[in-house]
């Protein structure tokens, strides 16, 4: 399916809005699940958009912006994934794998921007000198809009302008490579989960990880809400029945707090 100019423009406008949100992290509409679903709506296939978005969201679960680091661009990953799946009639796993080069390229553009944004500090210092509060607010809004615009231009180029080239490249991909990309797309969520584990896992939480893993191995669920409820049950059990030790030895508990930061 070809992307019409109108669709290209609408996707670009959406990318600008989501790009502003990516810069501010305010409403989380830049996450793949939302970006891909809205892109799906614009391309006339929200269901496929949601399927790609859900998968990409899993892969990007742990790729956070914590501590000012810049991960591969989740916005571009979700958006390009939806475009590939809908316009290229691909499986979600294949679409995710093909979106990877784009989101890594966009990552480097954002790193460049965060370097170039040093310039705002010079402008800001002048405004503070003349106590121009309106100006100070304006340059920060401008910073957000500029970042959104960069996302928009990137997306317009990748979806509309070079779509024939991309079609040609995809058409020339041999079957074994396509299959390899599909497998890679299926493995990609492992990265998201590994990143989460690195932060959340402690040895004392291993039982819950194991139970969650085993439950999902042997019981089929429509979604993970039932497992989350099992987790809630464990947490409540711990809260109501596990507290007595703490209360009996408040000092010892305080001293030993956080001693099990073993991680992986």
């Amino acid at each position, binding site marked *: 399916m070809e992307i019409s100019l109108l669709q290209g423009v609408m996707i670009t406008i959406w990318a600008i809005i989501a790009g502003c949100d990516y810069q501010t992290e305010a409403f989380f509409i830049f996450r793949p699940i939302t970006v891909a679903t809205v892109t799906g709506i614009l391309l006339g296939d929200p269901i496929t958009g949601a399927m790609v*978005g859900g998968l990409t969201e899993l892969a990007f679960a742990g790729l956070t912006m914590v501590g000012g680091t810049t991960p591969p661009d989740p916005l571009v990953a979700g958006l390009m994934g939806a475009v590939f799946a809908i316009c290229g009639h691909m499986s979600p796993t294949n679409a995710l794998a093909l979106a990877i080069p784009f989101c890594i390229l966009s990552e480097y553009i954002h790193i460049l921007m965060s370097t170039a944004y040093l310039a705002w500090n010079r402008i800001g210092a002048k405004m503070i000198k003349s106590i121009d509060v309106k100006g100070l607010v304006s340059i920060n809004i401008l910073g957000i809009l500029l970042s959104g615009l960069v996302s928009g231009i990137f997306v317009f180029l990748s979806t509309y302008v070079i779509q024939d080239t991309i079609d040609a490249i995809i058409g020339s991909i041999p079957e074994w490579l396509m299959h390899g990309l599909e497998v890679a797309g299926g493995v990609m969520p492992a990265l998201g989960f590994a990143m989460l584990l690195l932060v959340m896992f402690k040895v004392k939480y291993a039982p819950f990880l194991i139970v969650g893993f085993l439950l999902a191995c042997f019981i089929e*669920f*429509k979604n993970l809400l039932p497992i989350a409820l099992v987790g809630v049950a464990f947490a409540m059990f711990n809260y109501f029945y596990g507290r007595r030790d703490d209360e009996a030895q408040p000092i010892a508990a305080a001293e030993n707090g956080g001693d099990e930061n073993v991680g992986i």
Partner: protein
Amino acid sequence: MSESNVMTTDIGQADNETKLTKRDLNKAVWYSILLQGTFNYENYQGLGWCAMLAPTLKKLFKDRPDELRQALSDNTAFFNTQPVVSTFLQGLTLSMYEGKEKFSTINNVRLSLFGPLAGVGDSIFWFTLLPIMVGICSSMAVGGNLLGPILYFIVYIAVFCTRFFFIRLGYNTGAKAVSQIGEQTKDLSVGASILGNTVIGALIATYIEFSVNVSIPVGEGDPLNLQEAFFDMIIPNLLPLLITLLICFFIKKKNVSPTIIILGILVMCVALARLGIV
């Protein structure tokens, strides 16, 4: 950045006090969106933090331009915290400026709090809420259910609304509250970690697709399928679990960046597919 010379003007103006209203705090929350607007590698969120305080400070220091200039300039220093809970520090800082604390005290409180606060915020929003939302919403979305993305959207709008709560918390409780909040969130964070680990375990078993496609010829009979006859016999989803742990190992022990991991997954999977193993 010395503030001693400007602070002396304070005493004469004590009667001319400006109080912040509910409306001021609500407006300040909307300015908190600016926090990362000019994010850069020099002072990270510094300029954005200054801008999200600026309009309210302008009201507080209406007739004292020199102090306003000093306050704005102080707040452009290096700053990096989690956007949602930044409003807690925003409320706290505003209440201190309103209460005419010394600028040096306010600066010290800010500098000593933004790090710990980022820790609390990141562990609530990135490492607890996100995996749970991903677990529930993605699993719906992958199955073609639009309720997944819709639920995700609604929850994060609600998360934004908690900023109106956090700014009040900071404004009303002051610097002492931080240690108390730490105590209270301890139970919460243990519970959240239990929940999070249960969900991650299930995610690993459900959403990583990887199986080998190797058959070993066994004499006359049917060839032995390595996946069915070996890996699945030990435990289902053994390979997805091992892959996840392997990635953990490379990131934690070998300091490999996630971007390299992504490229590594692509290359490895394509190579294995070429060899006909997967």
